Structure formats: structure tokens, C-alpha cells
């Protein structure tokens, strides 16, 4: 069992200034997940008549992309290739002090405590992250166009992005390039995505800039912290797509 000191960002709402508050927790089992440790804290706070710490979470199995904690200066905490909800307390030691903060980026305003507003991501997808095909039951047979396995697998790898925003939170420029390039790449690698390729990349990048995300300076921090291991290769591919699209006008 572990005793820990938590230093947690508390902020009542978007207008509040916010500050770090210390909370001791005790009796933490190494088999608990990080979020279950926060559950323990919250139950104690509620029982003491205090307000629990607000944090985003839902599936708790690393796939919905809801959880978004900046733990000891790293998005999703000390382990690689997992989300905060998959992080277990066995990654920490008795007596540790743990800093827990929200994602920090101008395009992700804080809603409350550790919860931020990531709707900018949705708006980027709405600008072009789709293939325009109506539902009819008359589209061609799924096997009509064979797709080279290598391309299909790469498209899949790009498509596994969970939209959590760790890439933005980890980037010193708060750039969303990894997120946007994952979707652009998925479709760029598939024959179905070719028809709208030009408009897609131009519109998504335009929306990305309008949302206030920073520029990419190729530091690669996003790739390191991405829980799904989305590759920087996607950014290079998007840059090529963007250049080609710009020349086409």
C-alpha cells in the first residue's frame, strides 16, 4: 500500500484563475489504475463535504480518448503507448509526489479542474475528415477494389488515433499536426480517399490554423507521447499532400 501527495490543478470554471492544491492520499494499492486512485480521493473529498476533482474519463480501457491528464509533466503519465486510464499505480512508489494538470493549449480552454474543451478537434474533422458517400445500399461491392495490404495496414495505423489531444499537450507549440495528419494520411493511403484529397487537406489545415493551434517545428514530442504510437511519417505525408494540393490550387 502506498501513501502519496497529489498536487492537482483546481479551477472552478473557464473564468477562474486556477491553482495547484495539495492532497495527501493513503492506502493506494499498486493494482489500482491511476483513475481509480483519483476515485478514492474524490470519495474522500465528497465525504468531507468538499468538491471532488473534475476529470474527463469514460471507457477506462484506452480507446475512447476521453481521459486527458498531464501527469508529472507528461501527457498520460510516465509510461509510453498508453492513456492515463491504462496507467496503474505500480508505476509509482510509496511517498511519491504526483503533479496532475490539464492539457495546456490555447485551443483547449479549461472547462473545470482537469477538464478541457477539445471541440476544436471535432471542427477540424467537420472541415474535411470524411469521404462523401451517401448511405444507399448500392455502393459497389466491398471487394471491388483490392487494396495493397501494406497500404491498408498503414491506413489502419493512422486511423487508430483516438483524438485525445496528447500530441497538442506535449508540443511546445501546441500544434495539432499529428492529429490532423493521421486523418489526412488514412484517406490519402486508400483509393476511396483520392477523389476529395485536394479539398480535404486544404480545408482541414485551414480549420486547424483557425482554431489557434501552433505550427509544427518537427521536435517529435507528439509521437513520443501519443498513446497509440501514431507516426511522424504521417506529418511528412500530410505536408506532401498539402504541397501538391496547394500547387493544384
Amino acid at each position: 500500500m502506498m501513501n502519496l501527495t497529489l498536487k492537482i490543478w483546481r479551477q472552478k470554471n473557464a473564468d477562474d484563475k486556477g491553482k495547484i492544491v495539495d492532497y495527501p492520499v493513503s492506502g493506494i494499492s499498486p493494482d489500482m489504475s491511476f483513475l481509480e486512485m483519483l476515485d478514492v480521493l474524490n470519495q474522500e473529498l465528497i465525504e468531507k463535504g468538499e468538491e471532488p476533482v473534475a476529470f474527463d474519463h469514460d471507457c477506462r480501457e484506452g480507446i475512447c480518448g476521453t481521459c486527458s491528464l498531464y501527469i508529472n509533466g507528461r501527457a498520460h503519465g510516465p509510461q509510453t503507448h498508453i492513456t492515463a486510464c491504462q496507467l496503474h499505480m505500480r508505476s509509482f512508489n510509496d511517498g511519491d509526489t504526483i503533479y496532475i494538470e490539464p492539457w495546456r493549449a490555447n485551443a483547449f480552454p479549461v472547462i473545470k479542474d482537469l477538464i478541457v474543451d477539445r471541440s476544436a478537434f471535432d471542427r477540424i474533422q467537420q472541415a474535411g475528415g470524411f469521404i462523401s458517400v451517401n448511405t444507399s445500399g448500392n455502393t459497389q461491392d466491398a471487394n471491388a477494389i483490392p487494396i495493397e495490404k501494406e497500404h491498408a495496414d498503414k491506413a489502419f495505423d493512422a486511423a487508430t488515433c483516438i483524438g485525445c489531444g496528447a500530441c497538442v499537450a506535449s508540443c511546445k507549440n501546441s500544434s495539432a499536426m499529428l492529429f490532423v495528419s493521421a486523418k489526412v494520411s488514412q484517406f490519402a493511403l486508400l483509393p476511396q480517399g483520392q477523389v476529395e484529397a485536394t479539398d480535404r487537406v486544404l480545408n482541414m489545415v485551414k480549420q486547424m490554423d483557425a482554431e489557434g493551434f501552433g505550427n509544427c517545428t518537427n521536435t517529435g514530442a507528439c509521437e513520443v507521447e501519443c498513446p497509440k504510437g501514431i507516426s511522424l511519417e504521417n506529418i511528412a505525408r500530410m505536408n506532401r499532400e498539402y504541397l501538391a494540393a496547394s500547387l493544384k490550387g
Partner: protein
Amino acid sequence: MSILDSKIPDGPLADKWTKHKNEINLVNPANKRLIDIIVVGTGLAGGSAAATLAELGYNVKSFCFQDSPRRAHSIAAQGGINAAKNYQGDGDSTYRLFYDTVKGGDYRSREANVYRLAEVSTNIIDQCVAQGVPFAREYGGLLDNRSFGGVLVSRTFYAKGQTGQQLLLGAYAAMNRQIGRGKIKMYTRHEMLDVVVVDGKARGIIARNLVTGEIERHSAHAVVLGSGGYGNAFYLSTYAMGSNVTAAWKAHKRGAFFANPCYTQIHPTCIPVSGDHQSKLTLMSESLRNDGRIWVPKHKKDVEAIRNGSLKPTEIAEEDRDYYLERRYPAFGNLVPRDVASRAAKERCDAGYGVNKTGEAVYLDFASAIERYGKEQAYVKGLDPDDKKVVTELGKKVVENKYGNLFQMYEKIVDQNPYETPMMIYPAVHYTMGGLWVDYNLMTTVPGLYAIGEANFSDHGANRLGASALMQGLADGYFVLPYTIGDYLAHDIRTGPIPTDTKEFDEAENNVRAQIDKLINNKGSKTVDYFHKKLGKIMWNKCGMARNEQGLKEAIKEIAELREEFYKDVMVPGTENEYNEELAKAGRVADFLELGELFAKDALEREESAGGHFREEYQTEAGEALRRPEYQYVSAWEYKGKPSEAVHHKEPLEYENIEVKERSYK
């Protein structure tokens, strides 16, 4: 004559859907622009429905409690989606998918609905590929398939262990296109708290903005619920933390009958519970049973040695292992349906053969698969197939390619490497087959109120086969509801916008506000989680994998008492005018506390065993579920003030195209 009219079209089974589509009313494109539809939930069913309705020209308002529609829990579905494409040429057909689904559901689903599901299954794959969903492919560039439980063909399409994610992102992309065009108005972080019924028709909802706490009125000509299942009544489950029954339950209270609440799927392969702190359980996909073999030790002394740590599972000789599924069900082996596999695991663990400290775990072992694949690869690559090291390395790579993300998830949670030692697994609550009663058009007993996907009851009977939830969600949302809803809306083309300043909206809003005030001002001494956990224990112990009359009667009483205690003593911190997760949770748990009682009542009424509903009093000598012909009906419950007063209605089930017989997987 039952008051339930399922509206199943006449004619031969295979022609019903086509005939129905030809005969129902249509709304012309210009008139669709005059009609508003509310869709609650953005999972596979709600997301695909919202997108398709918007493509057709309706004005759609879509609601989800998550911060983005992409986060609905369909995202977590792992293994795959069924479709009767017969790409493998292994004898699959629409009829066979229909047959497997009806048999898998233990002859408790509606023939016509299931046949339609099988019929549109192939369209789903075509649609998803056109949307850019990156399904797994073979080296020739064509789509790959795998097998799931309860069937003898390979009809499951997949994208590694993330099929649900890829399909949901496909539906999300289709929605995004319509949001960008202004045809869908998206309301994220909004929770539906009531349905508004005007002149007997569903005409809107009351929703709470979860960020500001504001209570909002939204009107429409029809309301569609794609709000998922109610497995979180058990507290611990593979559902997301936020998954809840509130939308469906409020609809029930407004007149929608609730069908077969006791049909719950307890999935055989989940990571076992590790302690009291546990907040949720994690599934290990059924696809693992394509390659994993399930076993426990044959001898109690080995069980003891494993539990005290003096023996490793890999040290137990082949002949000292009991591959109990292969032993009991030679024809289907490790790929028996979920209900059968779960009960068999429980049987072994109850008999004292569980392999972890709690005695509630069995092994899922990949050693044979790693060897088999490794040998194949060694031959392909011209290496020595007898070199154990080479074979193991090659085999691990194949397994990693197929199930890598699942193995990683397991390792992160359990801190053991499943490539080296067998996984430990145990059944957990995973899906609910029961849900709002709907007719063939997917309309509930409230005109204009529809239920799709897991929120309805219609296609899976008493047990759902693997990879069929994704199929049903997308079938309902892409290919069924968008047609059938037109039949109803054709009468609304002259109605005009539905006003929200009416007494019905007043009443519903006041109702919602009163409940919130009550919860906030209660100032009791116990947290919401305290009650939720307590409810979960009652449900798991008395309404879980095995049920009996006495336990169910106790459950009914205990849940009613717990509900009373909840309203007396629950403590909700904070205020109603802000982001307040405890308040949202309290509302959901309040509804689970009502649903739970109806669940137990339904299980008590059904004096037979069928699929996921196993009554200990009704089993064969071999311990298999014993169905009883006199229970060949759907139970649909009508709300009358409280769960104990609910009125029981029956919809008889008739099987004209399939012979009802003992469900055997031996």
C-alpha cells in the same frame, strides 16, 4: 390478442423487407426539409442514423453526453462485425446468418427482424469500405475474415482488435460531413433527461447541458433513442463509466414498454476482478478464442500450487490440463457461444478449479497457436520447423499481428506477459439483449419514439452472438430506421415546427428540475458510488450468471429498499448550475435502482432458462439451459408508477422458417 402489434409484413420471410420497403409511405425530398428528428446517442446506431437521416434531408439534432460523438462506447468494441458475404466460400448465406443468430439467441428473437438484419449485413460492409474504414486485408488485397463463437463459418470482418473504433469513426466521419453542411446540429456534453409526449406522440426531449447545468427544451417530429444498454446496473462491467439507462428508462416511464430486461450477456473472456477499488472490467475479445484454448488444471493439488505461487501454469503437463470447452463441446470447442462459455467457466470455478487468488479465473492459452503459426511461418520462410526458438519467435509475431493491442492491454492491467504465460480470464457483464420494445419499424409503444441498436430488444433474443452488436447497430442506423421512420413522418409534412412553449414541455421540464433539486438538496451521508456498488453486488449475486426464485425475490426486495435508502441518504456535492459529475451520476443511479428491480421481476417471471438467462431450477441433466415452450414469448413491461406495479404483456414468438429445437453445440 396481444396489445403489442409487431407489424411484421406478410409474405415469405425472404421477401418481407423488400415488400415492406415498397409499400411504406415516403416523404418527398422537399418535405424532408420541414421535418426535425432528434437522435439521442452517437454510437454505431445513433451516429449512423443521424448521418443517414441528414443525408436524406431531414433536420437532425444529435445529442451525446460525451465531449465528442466519437467517444460513444461502440468505440471499444474489439473483435469484428458479421456479414453474410461468403467471401471465404465456406457455405455462408443470408439464411445461415439468420439461422445462427436465431439459434444463438436461444429461439427468443423475432424471425422477421433477424432475417432483415442478415439481409442488410452485406450492405454494411460495402458502405463502410466506401467510407474508408480500413478493414484487415489479405496479401491479395481482398478483405480478410475470422470466426466468432456459435458459428461454423468465417464471416467476421475486422480491423485488428479495434473494429468498433474503426466503424464508429466511419459513422462519426459521416456525421461530420453533415454537421459541416448544417444538416446535423450537434449537442455534445448534453444528457437527455425526459421525453416530451404531446397528444400521444413523442415530440421532443428535455436535456441538461452538462457544462453549464442549463435545462433545455428541444422539439422534433420524432425522437430516436440510440442510447445503448443498461449493463452498468451491475456497477462492474465492460461498459464505459458513463453508459446508462436513463434515456431508455425515461422513455419507459413515458409509455414505452421495456422488453426482456433480464436478458443480459455475461462475456466469458474478461480480465478478472482484482480488488474492491475496481471501477470497471476490461474485455478480451472473443476473437481470441479463434486461437486461444481455455483450460483449468485437472487436479486440485495443481490448483492449490498455482494459487500459492509454487507452480506456474506453463509447468503443468498437457495431460494434467482440463480443456473443458473442448471436452464438453467437441463440435464447437473453444468457440461455443458466450452464454455457454461463461457458464462453463463458472461451473469449473464453483467446483474449486479457479486459478487466481479469488478462485474466479480460468486460463486462455496461446502456446499452441504460437507453435502452430510459428511452424507455418518456418516452412514459408524455409527455416527449420523443429527449431523451437525460431518457431516461437515467428509464432509470436503472427499472434502479435492479430491481437497485439489486446495483449498490450492485458499486460498493462495485469502486469503479466500473455505471450509467455496464459491469460487469466473470467466472465463479466458486457451487453444487454433486452431493451425498449419495438415493432418491425423500430418504433416503441409511444408513436414517434424509436429505439435502435442496443437500446432496443429485437434481434438477439436471449443471447447475442459475437460480432453481431456492431452489425445490428449499423443495420438499424444506416439501413432500417431511415426507411421505416418515413412511414410515420409522411403524416407530419404539414405539421410545421413543434413549439416548445406548451404545457407538455412545461410539465416535463418541471419534472426534471424537481428530480435535480431533490438530489442536490438531499444532503445525505453516503456517496452515489456507495449505492451503485451496493446495487451492483445485488445484481451480480442474485441476477447474474445463475438465478433462482429465492434469490430473485430477495433481489426485488433489497433493490426496493436500497432505492428508498438512496433517496433518504444520498449526498450530491456542488450545485446544479455547473459542471457536476456527481449530480449526473446520481440521476443515472436513481434510474438503475428502478430498472434493477424490473430486471429481477422479469427474471423471476421467466420460469425457464434461455441464453443468458439461466434459472437454476430449469436445467438439463448435463447442466445446460432448459427452455420451456410455454415461455416462447417476449415479455414487455408497461410502467405503472413503480417497477413493482409494472404490467406484463406478451408478444408470442412464432417460428415458421426455422425448427425450434434443443440448442446443442456438442
